[in-house]
């Protein structure tokens, strides 16, 4: 187990290296640079800036500098947010994003699994169609539509919740709901399909023939097989929710890292974009590793 863990961590290094390489050259391919603005800076200052940040060196040399710094754990200073290093910006934003993300995942799992189980047990009934219809609606409405609607209802019309800001629990309610709605729908649909499939397994029939009550069949015999596909969804989904909350963070004005991703790319803030990309890459690798370990815990046939 421990050696497997070490192996997986080691094998993530080449992956990260590839991510860094592709991201580095892609952002450089984009036209413009970090110091281009509507009012051009004087030529001497521009030359000076470029010299300080090695921007006038050939690309491979810059790439070499960057790799060396990353190896030292230094993601460099932000080109746009003066007085901040990339690491500081990520460290500031990450707590916000992870709180939002984990709450949203937790909410999606609880409600999604509940709805999915109800729908599966009442397969092809009115309740099933209602739940699955709602789930379909949840998947199809994009968050940039859902967020303004909820803001309008809860913030503007009824005045129940703040429409932006950060710091208190009430600030989290709307963003977490908007983030989790499509995930709830996905989880509900997956749970339904998975449970229906599991309940058709011969070993469920064995359990019935042994005289086990439905409650025990569900909790003891069907739960693991039902949860496995949701588990494999969980890794990428957690990473995606934590990193992909850009729209939600922007709409609700939250100080997460999602906005650094977008703003960094728009501003050609090379180091910031790179830092966030590497961080996200690492997060996804970590989440997938966690999921694989959970798999072995759930399924005794999997051994590492």
């Amino acid at each position, binding site marked *: 187990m421990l050696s497997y863990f070490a192996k997986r961590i080691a094998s993530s290094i080449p992956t990260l290296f590839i991510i860094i390489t592709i991201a580095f050259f892609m952002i450089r391919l984009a036209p413009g640079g970090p110091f281009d603005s509507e009012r051009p800076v004087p030529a001497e200052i521009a030359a000076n800036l470029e010299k300080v940040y090695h921007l006038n060196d050939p690309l491979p040399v810059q790439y070499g500098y960057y790799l060396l710094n990353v190896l030292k754990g230094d993601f460099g200073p932000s080109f746009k947010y003066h007085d901040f290093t990339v690491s500081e910006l990520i460290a500031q934003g990450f707590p916000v994003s992870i709180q939002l993300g984990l709450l949203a995942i937790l909410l999606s799992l609880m409600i999604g699994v509940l709805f999915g189980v109800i729908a599966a047990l009442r*397969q092809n009934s009115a309740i099933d169609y209602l739940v699955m219809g709602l789930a379909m609606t949840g998947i199809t409405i994009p968050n940039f539509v859902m967020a303004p609607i909820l803001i309008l209802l809860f913030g503007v019309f009824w005045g129940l919740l703040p429409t932006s800001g950060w710091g208190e629990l009430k600030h989290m309610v709307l963003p977490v709901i908007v983030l989790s709605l499509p995930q709830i729908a996905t989880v509900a649909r997956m749970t339904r399909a998975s449970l229906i499939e599991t309940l*058709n*397994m*011969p*070993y469920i*029939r*064995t*359990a*019935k*023939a*042994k*005289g*086990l*009550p*439905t409650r*025990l069949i569900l909790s*003891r*015999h069907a739960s*693991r*097989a039902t949860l496995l596909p949701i588990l494999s969804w969980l890794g990428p989904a957690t990473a995606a929710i934590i990193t992909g909350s850009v729209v939600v963070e922007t709409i609700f004005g939250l100080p997460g890292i999602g906005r650094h991703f977008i703003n960094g790319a728009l501003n050609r803030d090379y180091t910031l974009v790179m830092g966030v990309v590497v961080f996200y890459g690492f997060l996804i690798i970590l989440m997938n590793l966690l999921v694989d370990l959970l798999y072995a815990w*759930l*399924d*005794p*046939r999997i051994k590492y």
Partner: protein
Amino acid sequence: MMLTIENLRVDFAVDSGIQRKQTLQAVRGVSLELDQGETVAIVGESGSGKSQLFNALMGLLPPNGSAHGSVSFNQQALLNQSDKSLNKIRGKEIGMIFQDPMTALNPYLRIGKQLTEVLEVHEGANFNKESAKRRAIEMLDRVKIKDPEQRFNSYPHELSGGMRQRVVIAMALLCKPKLIIADEPTTALDVTVQTEIIRLLKDIYRQEKTSIVLITHDLPLVAGLCDRIIVMYAGKIVETGTVDEIFYEAKHPYTQALLAATPTNTEKSGKMLAIDGQPPDPLNLPAGCAFSPRCAFVEERCKTDSPPERKIDAGHLVSCFREDI
């Protein structure tokens, strides 16, 4: 009578997509009786309804299946009862052994858990974890599993197919049921393991006097184990009799054809005998006798009328018009 089945019918609602919903008649009016301590074999091809018959009375039909008729087990009605009342009988009074031991055990749970939970649900307040474990290990030993203490903590995938089937049998026996339904218990196993399993069932029958219903398509396999044989074709019983009556005095053309098609007969003649034609499409059964399209002795009336059940001897019944065969 311990088990009485009267005019049992099992239907499946089949949605074939383009067409309107159809009804598949898997079992078409089966009546049979079983005494305490009796062993009976139900023989028939795949699709003859032999498994669905017993799935129906155990309440194990899939959601699109429905059962009609009446079944009583020790004066208790079984058919279409709630899960709650069935659960007092399933696993306790009636044990079931399934066809494929590779899939009949839950791969996520230890053997011991799957065994002791039978006692857990049926003994209620009397359940004691330690004594349940002891009894489960005893039962594993009883079905001739080596190192039962270690196997108690194994997962199903750590056991061979034959071992798993022994575990399934141990599971069915734990509560000392009055009746065991074995649904093709050897079909998924190697030939050498098959005889071992049958020998084990024979031992159990001899020692516990448990009634056994053995569902199979393998006639020679049941010869040494059973008192009576019931032959089914297309959801109906075509012939019942003692083992000798069926093996040596079979009256129904289907039973005769089935006996002729066994591999032991094949060895003598040097070629594999098969019954001509295909089993009928259960959605489109022929009128009259369902075997008529494949029957060598077919007459005009066979194609229009259902043959009545005819008594040859006290326990030997056959459903065929032809009295001359």
